[in-house]
């Protein structure tokens, strides 16, 4: 889609709603205006979603109609619609090249529609950026959102926000797709029939007086974790007005144990903030702090900054990870030990004991070697005040308490550990809270249940029986506010469509308490409401806009005088100044005894199971997000499904192969689920991720995967012991994007230890004489038919810019943020499970995962792989039409509109980073039938049609934008002025892009690093994207790193490898 289309289209949008965009300060520019009268009229007439798709269409604004037309690129449209196809068939039948060349040249007339009144800030063709924040599990990550004439198209991190520092995670990157999700609920529903907001108000009005008179007895509010100061304020107000009302919280992937741990240790709730930027030794007790924890994006950055050696100073922190199922932390760890969850407690006690925590007692974990334990202890002792012991969110309170005790003992507190006021509005045990609610529901105590977001009917443990009691007659009136008409909405009397955070005002706190104002970039596409609005209604302030509620609250905090300035600044910066949570001085009051509640968790013997939030759909809320569903899980590369992960040994014992269906029994509850064998999975424990098996997610997510909540225990949300695993004999197709996990002894990921590096920075040259480190994308001279410059392009002149990239494999944590960022930036389609199984996924950037060494506990290596922009590109040489050629600045240009689709370039690409549109993939996400999805597209990137090749372009649209701006005033492009999407999203700054001709640029500097090498450079492809070898910092007393390929699970491959080994052996 060309920018012209973009402008045209967006202009019409704006034109359609000018008056409102001007007058109404509430909505960021580009908001749309609907004829509500018409909508309501039609609504009451229409029934069932099939009659209409969106309010625009409903209101029949001419703007939107053309908008749809224009938003479709003709190129794609041509063979998307049947007529066009038949036209081509005729041509083929005639098979006249001439006819072909002329058949479809003439363009149809197109309309161009200006504003009626042009807003000042809008320059057609230039995007605007707005600061806002996205929350996950209640905790905010600051973002800057790109708006193309009123359409939010891309989310970036907010550099000023403590939880982001400019980076994001995969969820945040994908959130913009959820905004346009055509399956989002688009109207108020009453008992499965379409209804209106007004009739909902009257229905509620009928209830409220009675409730008031009863002091609110019978009124229950159920929320997820609340950090929003304003919402908290509203709730407080409500509870004051109606003291008998109750507010419950439930977060399926919540932090009950963390809270309880703090309480156990200090007798009160405090939040722990880790300062990885000050820690030299980190010990993780089953904690994956690089992902999924509040603030983990920030933590990842702080942690990695401490182990970057490419930059010269050769210092690294050291990470010990004890984990039950492979996670990101385990992959980057210097020493990793897979242990059962039940062993973490003894381990923690042992550590604490050895470090002098009296209360610890002297427990000894079974599978942990003395040697390792001693190493850990010695390291911790050696780095008092500069170390962190962190317990996993899932681990029971005792482990957290022990961790606190250890950190205290090592006087890390105040240095690497900070205890602060909880960011939550009301810290409490969610499990207990929801339990209480369900009991009252059963007891008929609940008259009016208002569920603000969340999906308890699905994501509470089935054994809790929330759904059962929700539908029983005793709950008189249940109201559910949610973005989808989901499992819970279906069971409630009323469903209110919720606004996406890009559509609504609001506020939220980050992991460190810092508050952010959430501002909308577009008026609600589907008339979504916010929790604030619903609360206002309950508070009897019906039709008070969220904006007012919000301002009212903050006005209270700031005071009248210069509130205006404060507000503008807060909204603009995306952070509210001086809101960081105040530090707390806490006293360790912990006797080391295991609380009663915990005893039963690991009681008894047998197989253990771990429930984890899913790395792609979290607790299930992202189930209908195609980008995330198709995103390969970091370690297993599994897409479109979840599976129960088992260790190779268990597979051997139970005779299980990948994809075998097994029947799991956890406390009498059964679930059939396929197995996936995961090297490095701890023995005696299996793990299953939450968030799948949705029954009402939408067209993308419904029926995908297996519902772990069905067997999730209520008493301990994360672990269970005594699991039975029975082979059913049935099979199930699991699809991964990487079939082969070993490097086959090939020089793909180069690695070593800090020690090697310090002894000889060029140590890698020893193993790889073929490559010169200095300029590794020019490996060596080869004989050539072209005497000049050994086959390089002699006519090339030196240009100002020579684009290049360096990827630091020591810094990459494999979090996938870059993959989604690339997809969002470049209009990359998704293709669905069946196509992925054929090997046709379309992501331009993939993260390869290799194992080295012992299959039971291998070393894991991540390698982001994208088009490396070879200077001697094999793909270019073989393209018969010159659709992929080299630019003067060293870019390997892929020209979609010239491509005829021979796929020869892909065959000849040694990195296999080219992606082909085998079918019209635009149709997969219903782009063809769901116009609003077209608004998501980046107008600066062509939408590819069926039958053309595509690949990473180094985000050339960003390069061009920067070049044009620079050339207008004839200045060079500054280093860092062009950021590729992947680079911008990367939490650990593992990706560096820039101009190689500028010796001072970051990328040029890194290219000089002795760790720099080009993957497969021995093929003389001269990659412009090179990688930095992965360094480890092992404890001197422990084994450095493993060598030797991890054997394949496929007997055939094992035979091949054996033959090869014999061959090599025969020679030496």
């Amino acid at each position: 889609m060309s920018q012209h289309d973009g402008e045209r289209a967006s202009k019409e949008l704006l034109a359609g709603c000018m008056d409102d965009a001007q007058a109404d300060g509430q909505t960021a520019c580009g908001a749309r205006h609907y004829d509500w009268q018409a909508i309501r009229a039609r609504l009451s007439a229409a029934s069932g979603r099939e009659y209409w798709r969106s309010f625009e269409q409903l209101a029949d604004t001419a703007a939107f109609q053309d908008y749809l037309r224009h938003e479709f690129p003709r190129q794609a449209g041509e063979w998307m619609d049947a007529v066009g196809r038949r036209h081509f068939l005729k041509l083929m039948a005639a098979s006249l090249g001439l006819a072909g060349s002329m058949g479809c040249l003439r363009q149809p007339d197109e309309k161009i529609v200006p504003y009626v009144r042009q807003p000042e800030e809008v320059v057609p063709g230039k995007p605007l950026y707005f600061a806002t924040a996205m929350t996950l599990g209640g905790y905010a990550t600051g973002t800057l959102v790109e708006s193309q004439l009123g359409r939010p198209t891309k989310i970036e991190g907010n550099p000023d926000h403590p939880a982001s520092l400019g980076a994001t995670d995969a969820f945040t990157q994908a959130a913009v797709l959820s905004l346009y999700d055509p399956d989002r609920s688009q109207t108020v529903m009453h008992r499965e029939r379409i209804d209106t907001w007004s009739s909902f108000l009257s229905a509620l009005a009928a209830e409220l007086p009675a409730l008031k008179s009863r002091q609110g007895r019978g009124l229950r509010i159920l929320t997820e974790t609340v950090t929003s100061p304003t919402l908290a304020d509203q709730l407080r107000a409500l509870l004051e007005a109606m003291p008998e009302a109750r507010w419950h919280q439930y977060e399926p992937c919540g932090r009950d144990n963390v809270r309880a741990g703090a309480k156990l240790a200090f007798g009160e709730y405090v939040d722990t903030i880790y300062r990885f930027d000050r820690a030299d030794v980190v010990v993780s007790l089953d904690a994956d702090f690089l992902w999924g924890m509040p603030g983990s994006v920030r933590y990842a950055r702080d942690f990695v900054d401490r182990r970057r050696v490419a930059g010269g100073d050769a210092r690294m922190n050291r990470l010990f990870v004890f984990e039950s199922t492979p996670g990101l932390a385990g992959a980057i760890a210097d020493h990793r030990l897979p242990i059962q969850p039940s062993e973490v407690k003894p381990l923690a006690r042992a550590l604490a004991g050895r470090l002098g925590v009296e209360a610890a007692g002297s427990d000894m974990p079974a599978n942990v070697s003395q040697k390792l334990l001693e190493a850990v202890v010695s390291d911790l002792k050696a780095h008092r005040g500069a170390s962190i012991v962190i317990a996993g969110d899932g681990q029971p309170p005792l482990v957290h308490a022990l961790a606190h005790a250890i950190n205290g003992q090592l006087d890390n507190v105040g240095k690497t550990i900070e205890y602060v006021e909880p960011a939550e509005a009301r810290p409490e045990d969610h499990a207990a809270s929801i339990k209480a609610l369900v009991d009252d529901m059963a007891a008929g105590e609940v008259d009016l249940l208002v569920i603000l977001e969340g999906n308890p009917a699905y994501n509470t443990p089935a054994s809790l029986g929330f759904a059962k009691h929700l539908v029983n007659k005793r709950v008189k009136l249940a109201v559910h506010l949610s973005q989808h008409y989901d499992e819970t909405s279906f069971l409630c009397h009323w469903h209110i469509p919720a606004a996406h955070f890009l559509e609504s005002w609001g506020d939220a706190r980050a992991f460190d308490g810092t508050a952010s104002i959430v501002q909308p970039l577009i008026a609600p596409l589907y008339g979504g409401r916010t929790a604030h609005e619903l609360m206002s209604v309950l508070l009897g302030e019906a039709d008070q806009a969220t904006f007012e509620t919000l301002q009212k609250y903050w006005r209270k905090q700031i005071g009248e005088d210069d509130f205006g300035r404060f507000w503008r600044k807060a909204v603009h910066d995306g952070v509210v100044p001086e809101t960081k949570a105040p530090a707390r001085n806490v006293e360790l009051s912990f006797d080391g005894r295991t609380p009663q509640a915990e005893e039963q968790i690991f009681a008894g013997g047998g197989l253990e199971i771990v429930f984890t939030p899913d790395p792609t759909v979290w607790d299930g809320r992202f189930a209908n997000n195609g980008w995330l569903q198709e995103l390969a899980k970091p370690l297993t590369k599994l897409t479109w499904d979840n599976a129960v992960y088992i260790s190779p040994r268990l597979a051997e014992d139970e005779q299980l192969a990948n994809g075998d269906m097994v029947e799991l029994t956890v406390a009498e509850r059964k679930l059939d689920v396929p197995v996936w064998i995961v090297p490095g999975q701890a023995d005696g424990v299996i793990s299953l991720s939450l968030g799948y098996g949705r029954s009402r997610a939408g067209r993308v997510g419904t029926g995908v995967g297996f519902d772990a909540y069905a067997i999730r225990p209520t008493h301990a949300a994360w672990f269970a012991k005594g699991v039975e695993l029975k082979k059913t004999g049935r099979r199930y197709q699991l699809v991964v994007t990487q079939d082969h996990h070993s490097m086959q002894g090939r020089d793909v990921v180069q690695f070593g230890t800090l020690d090697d590096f310090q002894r000889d920075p060029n140590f890698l040259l020893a193993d790889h004489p073929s490559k010169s480190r200095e300029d590794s994308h020019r490996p060596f001279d080869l004989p050539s038919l072209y005497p000049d410059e050994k086959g390089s392009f002699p006519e090339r002149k030196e240009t100002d810019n020579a684009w290049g990239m360096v990827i630091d494999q020591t810094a990459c944590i494999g979090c996938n943020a870059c993959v989604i960022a690339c997809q969002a930036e470049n209009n990359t389609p998704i293709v669905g499970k069946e196509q992925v199984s054929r090997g046709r996924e379309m992501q331009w950037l993939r993260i390869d995962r290799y194992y080295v060494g012992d299959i039971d506990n291998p070393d894991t290596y991540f390698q982001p792989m994208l088009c490396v922009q070879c200077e001697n590109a094999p793909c270019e040489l073989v393209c018969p039409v010159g659709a992929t050629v080299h630019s003067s600045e060293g870019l390997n240009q892929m020209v979609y509109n010239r491509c005829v689709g021979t796929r020869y370039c892909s065959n000849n690409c040694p990195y296999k980073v080219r992606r082909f549109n085998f079918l019209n993939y635009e149709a997969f996400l219903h782009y063809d039938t769901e116009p609003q999805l077209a608004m998501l597209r980046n107008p600066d990137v062509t939408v590819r049609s069926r039958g053309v090749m595509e690949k990473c372009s180094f985000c050339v649209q960003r390069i061009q934008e920067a070049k044009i701006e620079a050339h207008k005033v004839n200045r060079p492009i500054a280093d860092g002025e062009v950021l590729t999407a992947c680079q911008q999203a990367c939490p650990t700054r593992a990706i560096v892009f820039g101009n190689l001709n500028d010796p001072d640029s970051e990328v040029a500097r890194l290219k000089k690093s002795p760790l720099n090498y080009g993957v497969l450079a021995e093929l003389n492809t001269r990659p412009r994207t090179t990688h930095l070898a992965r360094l480890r910092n092992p404890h001197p007393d422990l084994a450095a790193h493993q060598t030797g390929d991890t054997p394949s699970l496929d007997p055939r491959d094992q035979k091949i490898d054996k033959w090869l080994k014999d061959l090599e052996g025969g020679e030496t």
Partner: protein
Amino acid sequence: MPQVFHPSMNTFSKATIFGALFVLIALAFVADRVERSPYVTEVDVFREQPVPFSHEHHVSGLGIDCRYCHTTVETSAFAGLPATEVCMSCHSQIWKDSPMLEPVRESFRTGKPLRWTRVHDLPDFVYFNHSIHIAKGIGCESCHGRVDQMPLMRRAASLQMAWCLDCHEKPEGAIRPKRDVFRFGPEARPVSHEDALRLMKDHGVETEQLLDCWTCHR
């Protein structure tokens, strides 16, 4: 009787051989011509517009600068089309009752935008940026022709790739002093080839990147 054909067939059959050859060549030639003809390129084709706006009148007649209406031409990829209020800023005083301008007034009243028909319409996979061309001293005239002499707007150039490349290969053919970018006619062009080359240097035009595919296609 082995004699199957009439004597005339001798000439005829020879003729057909050359005839066939000729027809093929002719076909190819015609096809090429059609591809470059106004039928395909839509050069000099007038389009139905809501208001018969005359650039000639407003530019040469009233001497209004291009940027008065096309406000973003120097800053953005998109030149910008005047909002209705821009038209009304004058036409609420002059010609305020002319029936010809009723659509404009209506748009202003109802807030429904005017719907013009695109005259210069590039394929969707082509990314043209007005601002950089202006900044490098390529005049409006170079692509849009003598707009100051067009009572009704029409396409002056084919906008085909070959046409773009001609100039991207030899910008000196179109470059002009920056002050003359928005002027029309021969006096607005630098006098000599040398001047053109000098301007190229002054404006910092680097030709070899102009021929990179990704300069226009992404």
